């Protein structure tokens, strides 16, 4: 099978630079990233065949309407007065930051506005966690990102409200390249929640490559919920990475419902001493989903700790690979890590792989454990619930919800939690 050639050109990059009147450093970074994207061969992954996927995106619309958003209307109205940035097909629909948060120095706006108004802050953080060298799709995003979000919380500022970023992908968009940049200064504390929604039929033969960068400076506490509703059609790439400094904590909440073709990475680089990161994840695949997920914790800091707890459900002809990787780098003395990866297979045609990986280069480690399982719904549990009068389908639902609920409850934004819960509920059994 011959590799499909990229059908995008550099003019797309220049078009974006011109449209947003970007500074020179960004223009050259984009151009370099594009060159990198062209130079990199189509990657060969162990569990995913990318040879037939088309690397296509654009032209990007400059303006979009608000039609065809019925599926997310409930979510959008539920966002209320909470800080929220809503982007549809690369165009900002709404960017709202309550005035009291702005007074405390918080910046929460779309990334283009941030480049214009807070150039120094953006320049210092952009591409720090995920750069163009990372992978072909990260380079693709670095060259062509648009319609992203920038969140900056200054030192010692603690925010109770949840910052919400919604990216809606509809038939209008030709590919989606959102980029979220979250910066937590020293001892800042807040929660961020992003949701990528495919509303209606999204076009095939395009690439969606999303990047989320979280920079947690010393002592910061960040909860980052990264949710997606990835549908069939495009090739989805997701790269999410946190750089966790000394004594900082980053808690990921991962959620995915869909039947898309997806390669995803979520990683915390535990760089500082005493840094911590957790990952709570839930995934539901149906249809002909292909999900190649890598959840990774890289320990470089001494006494850094991490915990991963992933739960997946596959049905119909879905094929999900959940890879959990813990890497304790030499010198990360006293590091501790635990990972658990549980998969439920509902239909005999579905397939799930749970692949735990422990890479330990340091001798002095306080704990490092893993657990992985792939199984079916326990018939004894079903029988027990049925013996109390609950019909089989309802019993299975209860068991599934019992299994998924803890991760769903961890989503900090109530609006997104309910939206995600409804998505899961619709696609379960």
């Amino acid at each position, binding site marked *: 099978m011959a590799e499909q050639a990229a059908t995008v050109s550099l003019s797309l990059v220049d078009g974006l630079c011109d449209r947003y009147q970007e500074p020179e450093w960004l223009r050259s970074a984009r151009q370099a990233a594009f060159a990198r994207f062209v130079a990199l061969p189509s990657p060969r992954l162990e569990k995913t065949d990318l040879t037939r996927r088309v690397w296509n995106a654009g032209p990007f619309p400059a303006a979009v309407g608000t039609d065809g958003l019925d599926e997310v209307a409930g979510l959008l109205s539920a966002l209320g007065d909470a800080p929220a940035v809503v982007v549809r097909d690369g165009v900002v629909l709404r960017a709202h930051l309550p005035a009291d948060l702005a007074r405390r120095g918080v910046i929460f706006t779309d990334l283009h506005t941030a480049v214009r108004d807070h150039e120094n802050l953006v320049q210092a953080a952009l591409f720090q966690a995920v750069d163009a060298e990372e992978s072909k799709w990260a380079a693709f995003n670095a060259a062509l990102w648009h319609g992203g979000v920038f969140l900056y919380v200054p030192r010692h500022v603690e925010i109770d409200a949840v910052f919400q970023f919604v990216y809606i992908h509809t038939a209008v968009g030709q590919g989606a390249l959102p980029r979220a940049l979250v910066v937590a200064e020293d001892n800042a504390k807040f929660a961020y929640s992003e949701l990528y929604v495919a509303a209606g039929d999204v076009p095939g033969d395009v690439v969606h490559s999303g990047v989320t960068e979280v920079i947690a400076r010393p002592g910061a506490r960040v909860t980052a919920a990264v949710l997606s509703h990835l549908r069939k059609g495009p090739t989805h790439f997701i790269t999410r990475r946190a750089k966790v400094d000394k004594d900082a904590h980053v808690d990921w909440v991962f959620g995915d419902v869909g039947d898309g073709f997806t390669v995803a990475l979520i990683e915390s680089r535990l760089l500082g001493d005493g840094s911590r990161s957790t990952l709570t994840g839930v995934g539901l695949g149906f249809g002909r989903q292909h999900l190649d997920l890598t959840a990774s914790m890289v320990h470089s800091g001494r006494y850094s700790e991490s915990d991963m707890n992933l739960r997946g459900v596959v049905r119909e002809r879905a094929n999900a690979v959940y890879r959990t990787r813990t890497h304790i780098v030499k010198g990360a003395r006293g590091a501790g890590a635990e990972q658990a990866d549980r998969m439920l297979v509902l239909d005999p045609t579905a397939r799930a792989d749970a692949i735990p990986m422990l890479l330990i280069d340091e001798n002095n480690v306080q704990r490092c454990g893993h657990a992985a399982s792939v199984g079916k719904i326990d018939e004894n*549990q079903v*029988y*027990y*619930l*049925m013996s*109390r009068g*609950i019909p089989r389908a309802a019993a299975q639902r209860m068991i599934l*919800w019992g299994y998924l609920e803890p991760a769903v409850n961890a989503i900090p934004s109530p609006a997104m939690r309910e939206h995600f819960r409804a998505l899961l509920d619709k696609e379960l059994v």
Partner: protein
Amino acid sequence: MRWTRPGFRLSAAPRAAFAFSTECGNVIPENMTPKVNFTGGRRRPWVRPDRELPDTVPYERIRTGNGEVDADMSSPVLKIEDLHVSVDGKEIVRGLDLTVKGGEIHAIMGPNGTGKSTLAAALMGHPRYEVTGGRVTLDGEDILAMSVDERARAGLFLAMQYPAEVPGVSNANFLRTALNARLGEGNEIPVIKFHRMLQEKMKQLGIDPSFAERYLNEGFSGGEKKRNEILQLAMLNPRIAILDEIDSGLDIDALRIVADAVNAVRSPERGFLIITHYQRLLEYIVPDHVHVMMQGRIVKSGDRELARELERKGYDWLKQELGIVDETVGAEV
């Protein structure tokens, strides 16, 4: 705190009188006539209204969203005729006949491996247990043709020896779903009423209130699991209740509590089939009939005295009397 105010304490008097009056047909004795208290004789809204109900309101009398639940108050009949049950191709129950009627308590005793638990699981419809012959009817309805949940909704209940653990599903959520499945759509029990009922039943069983929000059987001790089974029995109000070794793993105090709870739900509308190894349970829950199972069938039936005799003398005299060498299923010569 409010409940320490004198007005509340005095208001206890009229409530006691009220509770008395419901039991005695509204005759309030002269000396218990409510006195005027600090609250002006009016019940404060924060006095729990459920206190006015007698403690043992059967749930079929509790009003639900659409009015009264029409519980079938007739006496149930579970009829087992010539039942044969196989597990993994091996016949365990071999021609068992038994009829359990409302108001009756039947105890099935017998040594290990004689098919007692198999009988219980087959009646409930566990997928591993295959009924290869015979008939089982509840009030004339063929139980064996029903799925497990249909059997439960028809009024069959099995308190299990090894109940499953279901993480993530709270006890309260599970019980409410089960109760509503029995009550039927449009007849669901209101949430507050349900919780009040649950708290009351848990109190009767000496169960900690935190039980309600704990995940179903997850991390429960053996005794807690057994109590939870009885809690479900008390909540779900079945017509025929099968208790499979409900006494195993219980200490004496817990045994008494469980037995009291079972006795509390004895009624002419409910029949019991109690499977046990030990006569001790039957000292607390007095059976009307005692059956001994060996080799997959009932070999002897009697009354309470039979259980006492077995406790005194063991099973050997019975085996000799019946000419059984090995009582285990499949081990006979």
